[in-house]
């Protein structure tokens, strides 16, 4: 299997794209079942590994790095449009 994504820590709920992924392309990474991305994902950006309800912590490196601002579906791009910093909320 040629990996195109990376799960940094087993606790993480996001996976990192290792290259640009086209909408519908399958996420392939060690330790997880493949799933399709719902939209185009730029390289190095985050993809939801499972459904993340609004207000839930985004976990990367096994630690909380942000909080979701709305429901994020599995396979959706996770970035500043659907999360916020846990400190200094907008």
């Amino acid at each position, binding site marked *: 299997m040629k990996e195109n994504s990376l799960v940094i820590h087993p606790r993480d709920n996001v996976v990192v794209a290792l290259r640009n992924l086209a909408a519908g392309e399958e996420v392939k990474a060690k330790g997880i079942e493949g799933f399709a991305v719902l939209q185009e994902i730029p*390289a*190095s950006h*985050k993809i939801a590994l499972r459904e993340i309800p609004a207000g839930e912590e985004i976990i990367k490196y096994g630690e*909380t*790095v*942000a909080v979701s601002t709305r429901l994020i579906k599995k396979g959706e791009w996770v*970035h*500043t449009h659907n999360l916020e*910093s846990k*400190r200094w909320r907008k």
Partner: protein
Amino acid sequence: MREITGYERKNGKYGVRNHVLVMATVSCVNGVVNRISREVPEAVCVPHSYGCGRGSARETQILFRILASMVHHPNVGAVVLIGLGCERSNTKALLPFVEKAEKPVELFNVQDCGSLQTAKKGTEAARRMFAEISGQQRVPLPWDRLLVAMECGGSDAMSGVTANVALGAVSDWLVGKGSSVIFGENTEMIGTAHVLTRRARNEEVAKKIVAMIDQAEQRTEDIMGPLASWVISPGNMDGGMSTIAEKSMGCIHKGGTTTINQVVDYGEWPTEKGLILQDGPGYDDAGEGNQLPHTPELNPFHIAAQTGCAYGTGRQGQSTAFFALGAHDLLFLQKLLVRIIVERSVVHELPPLQNGKGASAARAAQIMSTPHSQIPIRNLPFPCSAFQL
């Protein structure tokens, strides 16, 4: 294992280079320093934008500490200090700190003899000093005298799994050899206090880590107000990072995994060995100015280190981490680093940076549309500790 060599200084420290430093005490004499730089290009000439007009005790302390530390720097064999005369950090005020350096130091003031004469005298002095120090020989440098600083820049979401991890591996390797490693950038530690304190040597160090990061967070809030959550750079966001906590989690990897033995202030010399955490901002020029006087060689000043500085940048995961180390003797460290990057790196072939779907444009728009009145007047909670070098 190949040994490294350096120049043994009278105070027991070792430099990996033997520079003649020509430094301004204040920005007003930068023209003179630049002129000497043209005449003696092999000298390390340091113009800068400080020296006056910064009043608080805290700022004065840092100013004197950094200027004096540059003179004391083990990679510096001799010094030409160019002063103006009326500035806060004038040569007379600096003298008590620089005369302890136990190396040739000559001072000139523009207000004594004018710019052209000062440039002429400074040029002659720099040439004289090269002749004076050229006979010094390199000797074996014990690993436990090596001090390396780690710095990262141009981060993206891959820095924390590529370049910074590689730098961390080098940190661990050096600490294992008995050397010391400094890392800092407190802005990029916001959100990681609970991770770093687990590695503190004792409760006192843990408390200092928490205090340092809390202050960085508070300062960011004071300066940026409602825009605090945008503290990471537009390029960081385009590269896939969304928050400061995410950036921080990647940033702290450059310090490796060993015990944090000491927390030192901006410009303060460590007294412990092993891994040292230094208070100082994440903005690279300021961060380097902080670390450079004691350790690293880095781009703004081109002064080589008491060792060198590892500079890890993970732009687009291409692992462009490199050592700006001073001496050929340290090149093998660079090779080691490259090997670690290749072995540990998960990505080698990322495509060119895509503009992250306008995240930074949105950020800029938000900043531009924020009413001026909502942005607080800059009020830094600097402690006004007593002046002390």
